[in-house]
């Protein structure tokens, strides 16, 4: 199953790849693969490397998603820092 994963750090795509994942893989599987590839460059408050906690927003095909959600072939997963307002 081929899933596209993008990490947006402030509007622009900073990292992007098509990942081959096993059938039945979840958003969490895709997330962990992205973290193993790129997390050394992610800003503080986005991902805690010690605990593995992610403090941004997860989206699949631009809909909010959670780690346990299943992925389908061709899905696009987006990780982004949480929005702020006032």
């Amino acid at each position, binding site marked *: 199953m081929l899933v596209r994963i993008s990490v*947006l*750090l*402030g*509007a*622009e795509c900073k990292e992007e790849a098509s990942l081959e994942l096993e059938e039945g893989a979840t958003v969490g599987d895709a997330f962990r693969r992205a973290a193993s590839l790129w997390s050394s460059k992610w*800003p*503080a*408050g*986005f991902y*805690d490397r010690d605990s593995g*906690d992610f*403090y*941004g*927003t997860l*989206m699949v095909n*631009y*809909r*909010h998603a*959670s780690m346990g959600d299943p992925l389908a072939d061709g899905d696009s997963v*987006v990780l*982004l*820092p*949480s*929005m*702020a*307002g*006032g």
Partner: protein
Amino acid sequence: MACGYAGKILYVDLSGMRHWAEPLDVGLSERFIGGSGLAAPLLFKEAPPGTEPLSPDNALIFLTGPFTGTMIPTSGRHCVVTRSPLTLTWGECDAGGHWGTALKRAGWDGIVVRGRAEYPVYLWVKDGHAEIRRADRVWGMDVYDADEALRTETSRDAVTGLIGPAGEKLVLLASIVFDGRDARVTARGGPGAVMGSKLLKGIVVSGTGPRPSAHHQKSLDQDLKARLPEIVRGGKALNEYGSANGVTGAEFSGDLPLMNWRKGSWPEGAAKLSGKAMAETILTGKFFCGACVIGCGRRVAVKTGRWAGVDGAGPEYESLGTLGSLCLVDDLEAVAKATELCNRLGLDTISTGSAVAFAMECYEKGLITKADAGLPLEWGSGEALVTLVEQMGNAVGLGAVLGRGVKRAAQEIGGLAPEYALHSKGLELPAHDPRAYYSSALSYATSNRGACHLAGLTHIFERATVMPEIGVESPMDRFTGEGKGRMVAAAQNVMGVMDSLKVCKFGLFAGITVTDMARWYTLLTGRETSPAALIAIGERIFNLKRVYNVRCGFSRKDDTMPDRILTLRRGEGGAARGLPPLGEHLADYYEARGWSEEGIPTRETLERLGLDGF
């Protein structure tokens, strides 16, 4: 009366020391929903364009929306509408907390205050009963102390909306603070000064009635039960680290304002002001507004050191971006202290931080001296920040000048000071840089209350948020003007609907959609609607606010942004190269709105929207 509404508004005439109830106009509620939408025709009637903002003739309108008081997520909100003394435009603010819910449960949709009392008073609303009481004992007290005193005098379960010394002294940046120490604030444009001009210290509300029932209660309950888990999930980051979690991401993308909008990058400073830094140092708890399942509120305390004694609501993203990064202050405890002073004294953190940054630049350029300020105003100085906030809240020293807002302060200081005063229509810019998200320039320039990020919240659509209901199917390129005029107009219409129903804008980050809102509106009120129909009401609302401004003399000449934003590149960081092309966008925007080249809604547009009577 449709479900969701209490059906009546409390009118208060402080000059005559009298009050009375009037039924809510059902027809108006159908055409303008509630909240700041419904406040638009009310302001036309109660304080017509041209009304002197600090005169007894101005009206101060507090309104809930039909969702307020229900269990619809993030709906525990209300608005305050008046003619702004800072900008002289339509003035509108929105706050969460529990005051709006208490008012609705007391049996009121809103309160309209006019006139001026002869001595300081507060309004005590206990369910259907209202009373104007003397406030001499609390006049002069800061908000936290007055909250304690008035809840002791009335009911510990009551919720307060209060001004601090800033409002009493008619500081033009004065706010109204709700919920005491868990401060939720209507801040922008100086509503606290209007309240102070009426000698009204506060409105204390206790509502013990039931929550409003829904027309289709069972279906609404089922709908909410099905949607809530996803909204809770979507709001997890906000719950975990508060809106402050946005600081590092905003710095990374070039969105966080730095050094009075002159610097491009500051990762080390942003990390010290982040939600994570707050959680690891001064955070003591979280709080939720009424009916919220996200809970972005922060409680903080500083127990030792220079700023010991801080204990209450912590700084939000906007406060960190203005009192902090805009002044290059990376001392989180100093920013927490400045935030608490703003809450206690009753000041808008955004405008206050902007005024401090302006003063620091004037000091750097020799327009303000150490003797003027009482201390050196070096960039990054927590001491200077806190001192100036205290001066502004008490209207003393240099703070008395800064408290009139950067536009007026620059005129008084003279020289090149107006170049350092960043505002639109006299309202200081919020903490999102239009050079990072081009649509923000247009959105700020055309916002009815002056530079405001919440009136359009358009930068989210140039990042990762989609809204198919307005044609944004995938995120837009943040550095182009393509399609932005239409998008900004549509987004402003949606935000007007949210401000009328009463839904928190953070709900969008958690996945609440316009389609959700339309469905909930129908299930609650029994009024059939659709996303498109709601957005059409949003267009009517936005245009009526614009007409108010046009009648006050505003037009295209005022739909501007500061030169610094349009001509000075950040130079480094995530938005190093961008300059928003406001002029191009403006023409597209006026066309999308059906306005003339001068930015005036045409007769056809007003007729189409049913506004020709205004």
